[in-house]
């Protein structure tokens, strides 16, 4: 179904040149307007097809779409099957009208878009006029509030997390790893990079790899790898 919709909608390529949509509802509203429908007289099936074609087109072009677009796509496929096979309603689902539900979602989102537009049209501080004594919207000292309190906790966590990373980085410095590899190379002219691993921690592996590149660059060792993902061999270079 997606493929045929795609073939029918070559003309949809223009969509790729549009500014990005805020989300699937935004895209649906765009398609509805483009097809000159209103929410009251909306024919949902062609809109569903165009939506799916858009998503398929974006995926075919390897353009990353937020997960919500794909969730909506599967919801719309389900919705379309309900519309085409009205008898498919499962027991306990009488009274649920999925088309009506979708329209309600669109109505609520449309209202919000309009409200957002009206807000942006109001004279705004720091854009259309400035308050006395201030041209920068961000304050150096936050007002007291629960948001400020929670952000303070986040700041503590960020800072202490930073310490942990620093310590780790110090434990596996590239210089240190270069020393370790060099010592092993002195004992044996040919070693595997994995021979140098002690803890197996990710940061150690990264530091070791960087160190081997450094040693190769400074002509202390030659790096050999047979094939992708093959073992990395270090061969001592005689001075």
């Amino acid at each position, binding site marked *: 179904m997606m493929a045929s919709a795609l073939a029918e909608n070559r003309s949809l390529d223009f969509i790729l040149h549009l500014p990005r949509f805020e989300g699937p509802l935004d895209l649906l509203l765009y398609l509805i307007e483009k097809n000159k429908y209103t929410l009251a007289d909306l024919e949902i099936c062609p809109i569903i097809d165009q939506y799916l074609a858009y998503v398929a087109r974006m995926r075919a072009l390897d353009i990353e779409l937020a997960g919500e677009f794909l969730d909506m796509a599967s919801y719309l496929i389900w919705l379309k099957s309900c519309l085409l096979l009205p008898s498919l309603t499962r027991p306990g689902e009488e009274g649920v009208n999925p088309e009506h539900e979708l329209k309600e979602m669109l109505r609520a989102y449309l*209202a919000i878009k309009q409200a957002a537009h009206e807000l942006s049209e109001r004279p705004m501080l*720091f854009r259309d006029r400035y308050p006395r004594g201030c041209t920068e919207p961000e304050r150096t000292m936050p007002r007291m509030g629960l948001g400020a309190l929670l952000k303070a906790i986040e700041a503590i966590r960020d800072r202490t997390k930073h310490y942990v990373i620093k310590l780790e980085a110090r434990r596996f410095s590239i210089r240190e790893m270069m020393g370790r590899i060099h010592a092993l190379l002195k004992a044996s002219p040919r070693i595997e990079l994995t021979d140098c691993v002690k803890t197996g921690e990710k940061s150690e592996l990264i530091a070791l790899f960087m160190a081997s590149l450094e040693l190769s660059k400074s002509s202390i060792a030659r790096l050999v790898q047979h094939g992708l993902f093959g073992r990395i061999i270090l061969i001592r270079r005689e001075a």
Partner: protein
Amino acid sequence: MEKREIIEALIFVSDGARTLKEIRQVLPDLASDDVEALVAELNRIYEQSGRSFRIIPAAEGYLFVTRPEYTPHIRTLAAPARLSQAALEVLAVIAYKGPCTRQTIETIRGVDSSSALKSLLKSELIDIKPGKPMQYHATDRFLEVFGLRSLSELPDIAQFEEVFAHAPDEAGALDQSRE
């Protein structure tokens, strides 16, 4: 020294809007209508003498701001603020619907809204309400920035109230279909 000029000085030195409550704390014998009349007199004086600023009502009080025609000149020294579409939409939900959870916002918008929430919190346009689950509400700063006395001054709020009465709530239609 007149009361009118005391009011002017109070608004002039205020960081953010000077609330009516604060003004009446300093001048207890003035009713709110009196304050409003005196502020109107001040604005007339500014207009007649060609001043570059006025006092506007904002956040249950008053705020000194520059006249819009001076904005291009001020912008030479300070970049203008601009709200993203996502931030505006999240702000609209919170302002029109009243305190609400992230889930409500995302159900209405149909997309993840955490980074917009984060930036709005940082700019103090919204804050977190006491209690659980976590709900966001519009702040006085929001009212100042958009020149509103209170949230009830938002245009067509009645129209939106009707829409939100039917709006999908915490468990949206999309979530139900995914069970």
